[in-house]
């Protein structure tokens, strides 16, 4: 077990180093003039020369890589051209809102995806199955930015419910000010017992969360269906069935439990994907997270900011992958041996 964990950790670390090198290549090798893309278009010749020096472009490439890795480790992720702040501090202030959004989306996806997947497996090949499978494929085929606009059109424009911009109504800052502990409005409001803000924050959260949920919902529903069907097809379940147990009992007793195991894994993996999907959704809802940060950065040709976000999400992805693998190894001894 220890050996497995150690091996897995070493592999994870290797991938992280690879990720860093790949972002290095994107930031420093792909652009024709990395220094210019690092300081943005307005730089004076002096600033440009300084960037040239700071980025170590006058040094050998391996040396640059080492310096770059060192910078990342000690927290020097560059300075955003757009906000003029350190990229790392920008990320820290933007990440909570995105996490709040993605967690809400995943909760929605799980709440709907699991029952749908189960229904689909229960009535395999019949109308409910067909419907759920279609919905699941539609979920992963959905251009989320379009879904965001269409939902705004329906829920705000036509029905006149659900707000469309920001984490909560900023006018509330005057009547019921909210202290920012986590920068997740819902959490902060809960902690403070600030009901007006909580109410407003939940309203603001619904539409973007539903939009971000489309993709994980599809993935989770498919996953649950597949793993339930797989279990039900196994030898021991067939035996039970042959013994004359009613189908419903077989389903709930044997199909369900093992099917839920992979959900933990898939949810963790889908987390990073959903973070990337917020790039397309947050700007539409003026949601103050990483997504609108990226959208604003692409418009101001802000290379350090974009690389910073890329790095952050890739690391989140690798780490969540790692955790999933190790947790699963604990739960399922077969993995350790393979």
């Amino acid at each position, binding site marked *: 077990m220890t050996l497995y964990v150690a091996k897995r950790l070493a*592999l994870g670390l290797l*991938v992280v180093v690879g990720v860093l090198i790949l972002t290095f290549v994107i930031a420093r090798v792909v652009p024709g003039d990395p220094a210019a893309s690092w300081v943005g278009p307005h730089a004076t010749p002096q600033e440009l020369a300084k960037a040239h020096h700071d980025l170590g472009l006058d040094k050998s490439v391996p040396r640059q890589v080492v310096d770059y890795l060192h910078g990342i480790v000690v927290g020097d992720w560059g300075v955003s051209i757009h906000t003029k702040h350190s990229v790392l501090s920008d990320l820290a202030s933007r990440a909570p809102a995105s996490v709040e959004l993605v967690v809400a989306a995943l909760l929605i996806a799980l709440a709907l995806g699991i029952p749908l997947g189960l229904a689909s497996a229960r009535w395999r090949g019949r109308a409910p199955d067909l419907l759920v499978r279609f919905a699941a494929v539609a979920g992963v*085929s959905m251009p989320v930015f*379009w879904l965001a*606009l269409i939902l*705004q059109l329906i829920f705000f424009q036509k029905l006149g419910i659900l707000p469309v911009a920001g984490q909560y109504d900023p006018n509330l800052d005057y009547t019921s000010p909210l202290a920012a502990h986590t920068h997740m409005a819902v959490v902060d409001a809960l902690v403070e017992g600030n009901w007006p803000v909580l109410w407003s924050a939940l309203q603001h959260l619904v539409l973007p969360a539903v939009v971000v949920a489309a993709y994980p919902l599809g993935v989770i529903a498919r996953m649950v269906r597949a793993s339930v069907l797989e279990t039900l097809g196994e030898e021991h379940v067939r035996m039970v069935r042959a013994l004359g147990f009613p189908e419903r009992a077989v389903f709930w007793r044997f199909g369900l439990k093992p099917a839920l195991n992979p959900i933990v894994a898939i949810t963790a993996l889908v987390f990073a994907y959903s973070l*990337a999907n917020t790039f397309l959704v947050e700007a539409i809802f003026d949601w103050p997270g990483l997504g609108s940060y990226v959208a604003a950065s*692409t418009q101001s040709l802000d290379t350090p900011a974009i690389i910073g976000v890329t790095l952050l999400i*890739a690391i989140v*992805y690798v780490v969540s992958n790692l955790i999933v693998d190790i947790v699963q190894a604990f739960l399922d001894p077969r993995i350790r041996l393979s």
Partner: protein
Amino acid sequence: MTEVAALPLVARRRALTRALRRNPLLLSGALIAFLLVVVAVFAPLIAPHPADAGTATNPIESLLPPSWHHLFGTDAVGRDLLSRVVFGARISLRIAGLVLASSILIGVPLGLAAGYFGGWIDSVIMRVTDVFLAFPALLLSLALAAVLTPSVGNATIAIAVTWWPWYARLARGQAASVAGRPFIEGARALGVPPVRTLLRHVLPNSITPVIVQASLDVGGIILTAAALSFLGLGAQDPTPEWGLMVSQGQSYFTTQWWLVTFPGAAILVAALAFNLLGDGLREVLDPRRIERR
């Protein structure tokens, strides 16, 4: 991880026909996908105002609602939206085709080599794919597209760079599963050049899973390309790219609903069709594989 029962070709074909009849989702996916290809190929004949897919503008007729003359209405500079959506199919499918072709051309040989030779070659290639797969596809292509000048070509390159590792993995699995078989060992002992063994015996086995994977990927690539254009990192006006059209219509979507509705629906329909097709194919040809994307 990705093993496909090597059914004989005839049986596979028969299974396919049967599946098409039994699986309405696969059937509808295949039909719509075929229709999309037809629309893309004959776009100049289908589009009522082909010039509007290019640089033509007609500001006097801007923002007209859907009518018999303009079935999808017109955009802010008076271009016929239907024509642009029709031509958009060309762009999306061309991007998907180019990305898949380059991913397969890069990924499959690397994967075959990794699986066949094993050892350090395998380790190196697989660790490299691990690194690429540590990024959600949209994220890596976005970072790349952001440092390149925005254009359809560069968006295609950016997506291809994020896509090839999947094919390397797939081909490696295939190669590794055959590499240990007696006839391959025999060929090795007889001194048959590895390239020949790979082409004769290993590659054919990989074709089915690659086709399944490719049909599954078309939808994802179309979505990623549209997303890049939506963010301003892909196609530029007047290219009738669906994602770009949604982005341009954003300022009008509450008052002129057709501007975002139709191009966005086109993205959804295209991605949906290919995903249904891919899903169905996978179910028929490769029922055990679980996708992790």
